[in-house]
């Protein structure tokens, strides 16, 4: 007689359905790409060439699911997934993570901590990393997280991060996604901010063929400030689908979102954002901006900037634009002896850097600019 034990997480995963066309959270999105049925988790991987280390940062290196080198006083591996929740459409994927992720990296500090995480991805199949970053009162944590492919296999990365800031703490996190063009990434980025804390969460996407990213930020303490930044540079054969939610659950809270997409070739981007202000969350200050820079006549950008406001004493705004590099700017640079091609590239890189500068952290900014420049070197 055999008894099969099914965990509640696995049961939930099996109960849920993959996204379908009529799902409002998947409007304009490639819901078919999201169907991961039949995929097995990846086995052990190999390590690649390590990038130059960041000065003053502890470094942990992962090859697929295994930690292969490095250690930090502020981080430990805990068995199993922390169980991400998805409220923006990919609950099946969140359940998948909860059911099958091997371990969670738990980062916690009450003082200053700088940590660099390198994820080398290789082989075909599912890879499900998870990270919890917890800043205790008064702490200042900086985290850099890089996803780097070391072969051309079609990997599927479903990754979840949960950021929690206690009173008067600060977390700055930069994620760079440099996967190969056959891979997919589904990313959950959740954050909860207590009073007078600050979180700056930035992401740079240059790789992968398809990315779905769900960012959910809850500002639940007064005078807390949540900043969400994104720079993407998709090219032909790449589609980035980003959904965001800025949730204001307390008085006098602040959030600011800035997404900058530069689209090359036949690239597609989708942005859907919502600022949600709870009843009674007066004194909310919330902003949301998505800008698309269209570099070719074949790229395509969809923007759905949304607001749901249930309190009257608020300042909220959103803006969304799609346009190309203006002729005047090109002309100005050409008049100074720069070729048209270089001028376009220069203006476009400046466009991305505007978001990167908001990190206000020289080391992180330098890294982000490098990743952006590498993509420009390929596309232009």
């Amino acid at each position, binding site marked *: 007689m055999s008894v099969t034990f099914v965990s509640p997480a696995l049961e939930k995963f099996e109960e849920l359905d993959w996204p379908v066309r009529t799902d409002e959270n998947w409007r304009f999105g490639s819901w078919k790409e999201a169907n991961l049925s039949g995929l097995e988790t990846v086995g052990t991987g190999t390590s690649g060439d390590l990038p130059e280390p960041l000065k003053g940062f502890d470094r942990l290196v992962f090859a697929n699911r295994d930690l292969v080198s490095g250690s930090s006083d502020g981080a430990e591996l805990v068995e199993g997934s922390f169980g991400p929740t998805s409220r923006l459409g990919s609950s099946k994927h969140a359940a998948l993570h909860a059911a099958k992720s091997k371990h969670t990296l738990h980062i916690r500090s009450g003082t200053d901590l700088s940590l660099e995480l390198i994820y080398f991805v290789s082989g075909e199949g599912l890879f499900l990393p998870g990270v919890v970053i917890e800043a205790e009162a008064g702490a200042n944590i900086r985290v850099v997280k890089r996803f780097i492919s070391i072969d051309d296999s079609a990997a599927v990365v479903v990754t979840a991060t949960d950021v929690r800031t206690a009173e008067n703490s600060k977390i700055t996190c930069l994620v760079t996604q440099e996967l190969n063009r056959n891979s997919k990434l589904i990313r959950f980025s959740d954050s909860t901010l207590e009073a007078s804390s600050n979180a700056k969460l930035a992401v740079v996407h240059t790789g992968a063929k398809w990315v779905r990213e769900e960012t959910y930020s809850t500002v639940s303490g007064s005078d807390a400030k949540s900043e969400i930044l994104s720079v993407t540079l998709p090219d032909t054969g790449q589609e980035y689908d980003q959904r965001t939610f800025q949730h204001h659950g307390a008085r006098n809270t602040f959030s600011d979102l800035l997404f900058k997409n530069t689209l090359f070739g036949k690239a597609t981007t989708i942005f859907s954002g919502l600022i949600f202000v709870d009843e009674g969350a007066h004194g909310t200050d919330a902003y949301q901006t998505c800008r698309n820079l269209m570099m070719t006549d074949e790229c395509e950008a969809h923007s759905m900037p949304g607001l749901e*406001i249930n309190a009257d004493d608020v300042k909220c705004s959103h803006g969304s634009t799609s346009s190309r590099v203006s002729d005047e700017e090109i002309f100005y640079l050409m008049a100074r002896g720069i070729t048209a091609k270089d001028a376009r590239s220069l203006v476009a890189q400046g466009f991305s850097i505007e978001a990167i500068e908001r990190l206000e952290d020289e080391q992180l900014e330098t890294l982000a600019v490098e990743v952006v420049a590498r993509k420009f070197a390929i596309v232009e």
Partner: protein
Amino acid sequence: MMNSETATVKKVAFEKDDVGNFSFPESHKFDAGYGLTKDTVDYISKVKDEPAWVNEFRHKALKTFESKPMPTNWATRDLENIDFDAIRYYLSDGAQPKRSWDEVPPEVLETFDRLGVPEQERAFLAGVEAQYDSEAAYSNVKEALADEGVIFVTCAEGLKEHEEIFRPWFGKVIPTGDNKFSALNSAVMSGGSFIYIPPGVKVKHPLQAYFRINSENFGQFERTLIIADEGSEVMYMEGCTAPKFETATLHSAVVELVAMKGAKIQYVTVQNWSSNVFNLVTKRGLAHEDAEIRWIDCNIGSRLTMKYPGVVMKGDRARGEVISIALANDGQHQDTGAKMIHAANNTTSNVISKSISVGEGRSTYRGQVHIPKHLKGCKNNTECDALLISTNSRTDTYPAISVKGNQHVTQHEASVSQVSEEMLFYMQQRGLSETQAMSLAVNGFINDLVEEFPMEYSVELKRLIDLEMEGSVG
């Protein structure tokens, strides 16, 4: 503070509804009864003595209506409260409208008299149609215009007597299957206008339609088609009221506009249904080369309004515009917006929406801008501003902008704010009461849009808004 505020808002809501809050006993020669079946459709076709193709069109639409789910995957669940079996789909005294007010039955005449329609017709209108429940009671256009070839008749007359102009465009701008409610309208449509403006004719004074619901549990499904031929111009205005019944009433219209090369159509709506009406309307215009279509829309009444006027810019350099004012008070949800479909080069569209939420009112902006592949020089500008008056007021914004290619410029901006304490304080310092100050601030907020309405309407609008604002300072 809260209690007195709620009381005043209620009083104001009552006064506002009072304009149209009266009804006469029903006396219908033709009544399709409650509920919607194939027989209802056949009954309407028979009463209206319609050609076979129209009856066939209705039956097909009924099937589409039945097969489509309620769009509650994105829209409010309040839609589920509509009981299609408890609605009467056709009530009339006969399908032939009168050409003179003298021939209109006395209670109908009194209705429109109280609403000021005949008076306005004398004062500044080029033509009027007045619809009472399912059919137009009165329809007339100034002789001089008729001599120039302007056609302004009911939709039923249009499809029978002007089939050669009517049929090629009917159902082409808004296909039956566009959404559940356009299908419903196509199945049971009755009333509405057909307008044709011949090439080069510029109609100086507006044409007006007035829609009145008099009977309880009644659904009004008028259908309007306006064709402005090459280089012509027309302004069309519609107004509407209903008495406040205990039960919910449904109004589901379809309005199609066709502006041929270089033509210009302006469509003005002042919607002041009583706050038990579900107002679910599909409106869209097709603009050919160099043509311009403007929707000027004001929503003050109804329980739930869902209306997203659209322009399909099919010809080069066509222009589309939506100017929208919405005011949501207690128990109201104004879900309005705009749809701009760019389908040719160098087309431009502009959307300006301003909403005000008072008490527990909820206003929503929903927009769509679409610029497909291989076009160049398209421009869209969208601005939506929301003003929240009370602590429990609510506002949402859900735009969707799709752009393909780098030859275009689109920009979207939205903001939410309240009337600042400083502003109110400043005005009170100068001797205005708090209410006057609030009214002034709100009127200032929408002033530039109110000016887009014809003068007679903008005066009325300001008055209605003053009434809504009375004592609602929270």
